[in-house]
């Protein structure tokens, strides 16, 4: 369970108005593994995820201190264009939000806005990413249909294909299976396991079982603080903190 660390989070404090949401969060996220951020609802895990690609910028009254290093860049304090940084990270949200356009254009969107517009270039790539997301076979005859006509499980895979299309090194996933049926969830989980050889995956979940199934590295949060973190084996079998033990036993929600 060794490897380089991809994301280094250092002393991050985040306030929503008067509410202290993230408290001195420090963590390292290993490269090309699945890191699961685990914890009960409202513990700040989604906020931590959104801090990594600075989607927190979209909320009013947010104050962030600290650093998040991705490569050499400190995402929180960089002078680089934030849109450029976000392109290195794909995002899957709790429920899929395809763009209001057809299936092909959903995947082509990210490529188009980074300036690659020719149909000849786009066509094989759209196919490639749809195949990567296990969706190609189901949609190859209806690429011009609206994305909203897909089932919710298919939509989530479309969002995955769309996220992969901008060629990120990191995939951020915010409870990506919570709106899906068990079968669609399994497809996404298996996909993540397949993709981790190429991508660093950070996934938020409140499902202990899911964490056990796919995590390589676990970060456990409670009330805005990181209680414990470590490689999955160690985390589940050699738990150190009392609070974590209680959570793993299912003693609170």
């Amino acid at each position, binding site marked *: 369970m060794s490897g380089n660390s991809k994301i280094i989070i250092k002393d991050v404090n985040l306030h929503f108005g008067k509410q202290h949401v993230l408290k001195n969060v420090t963590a390292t996220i290993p490269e090309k593994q699945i890191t699961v951020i685990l914890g009960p609802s409202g513990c700040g895990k989604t906020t931590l995820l959104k801090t990594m690609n600075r989607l927190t910028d979209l909320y009013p009254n947010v104050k962030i201190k600290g650093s998040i290093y991705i490569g050499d860049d400190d995402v929180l304090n960089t002078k680089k264009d934030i849109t450029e940084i976000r392109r290195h990270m794909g995002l899957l949200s709790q429920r899929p939000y395809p763009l209001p356009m057809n299936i092909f254009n959903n995947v082509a969107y990210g490529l188009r*806005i980074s300036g690659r517009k020719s149909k000849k270039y786009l066509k094989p790539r759209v196919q490639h990413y749809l195949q990567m997301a296990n969706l190609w076979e189901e949609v190859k005859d209806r690429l011009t249909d609206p994305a909203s006509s897909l089932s919710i499980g298919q939509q989530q895979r479309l969002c995955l294909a769309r996220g992969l299309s901008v060629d990120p090194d990191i995939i951020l996933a915010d409870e990506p299976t919570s709106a899906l049926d068990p079968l669609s969830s399994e497809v996404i989980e298996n996909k993540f396991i397949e993709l981790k050889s190429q991508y660093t995956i950070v996934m938020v979940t409140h499902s202990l079982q899911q964490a056990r199934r796919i995590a390589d590295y676990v970060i456990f949060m409670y009330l805005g603080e990181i209680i414990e973190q470590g490689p999955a084996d160690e985390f589940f079998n050699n738990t150190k903190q009392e609070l974590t033990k209680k959570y793993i036993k299912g003693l609170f929600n």
Partner: protein
Amino acid sequence: MKKSKLRNAEELFFRGVMILSSSVIGFVLVLILWSIVKRGFPALSWEMITQTPKGGFYFGKEGGIANAIVGSLYVASGATLLAMIIGIPVSLYMNVNLHKRKKLVTAIRFLLDVMWGIPSIVYGAFGFTIMIFFGMHSSLLAGILTITLFILPIMIRSIDEVLLSVPKGLMEASYSLGSTESETSYKVFLKQCISGVTTAVLLSFGRAIGDAASVLFTTGYTDHMPTSLMQPTATLPLAIFFQMSSPIAEVKERAYASALILTFIILLISIIARIISIRYQKHKIKI
């Protein structure tokens, strides 16, 4: 037991009130349409749509109101187009770029709502003052500009209400792909809301073509076809007004025919806009 009876009675009462008020609105609408059709249809003729007023038209002689129809279409289309060019970017800016500045946006909304409430005659008077200041005469251009001012708050606020319904998740999805604010605005928000925006534009067009008070001083009135932006231009609401105030019965009937034409134009535009919006609505992401 008693409680459920009371709740049922309450349900029944409010349902009754709703049915009553809906029927009243429906009834009034039908009444208006019926009186226009009943009095206007017999007076309607091909001549009326295709000819300009000949000498003595307003005394019941020959001619038509083609100049007012064309004038109204010019004024309303010009103003709607100008208002779209200003209004769509403004409402997108309010919802995308100023997304975090809640207080500022609330203040802007309040201002726009106040402007929406200002009577159109005030816009007319304002337009007139500006015209005098620049030494302009009443003209098609002055009318278009005044009507643009008049419908801008209507258009911006109607589009704004539609944009407010865009789910936050869609916004995050767009940004997470590395979109800029303008890409989020025009490629995501506008696409998501295209049918609502069409309705907002249509509403503004309806207000533009139907308003008499703001064109009274600014556009003026003539018996000629409008050929230049700098010339006075006839409009349908004023044509109705002038004919209606005539003591001659025949001319009065023609006022109803003119109203029928105006209603028909609005109906036609509504249908076209509906078709356009349905065509694009299929891509809308439903929540």
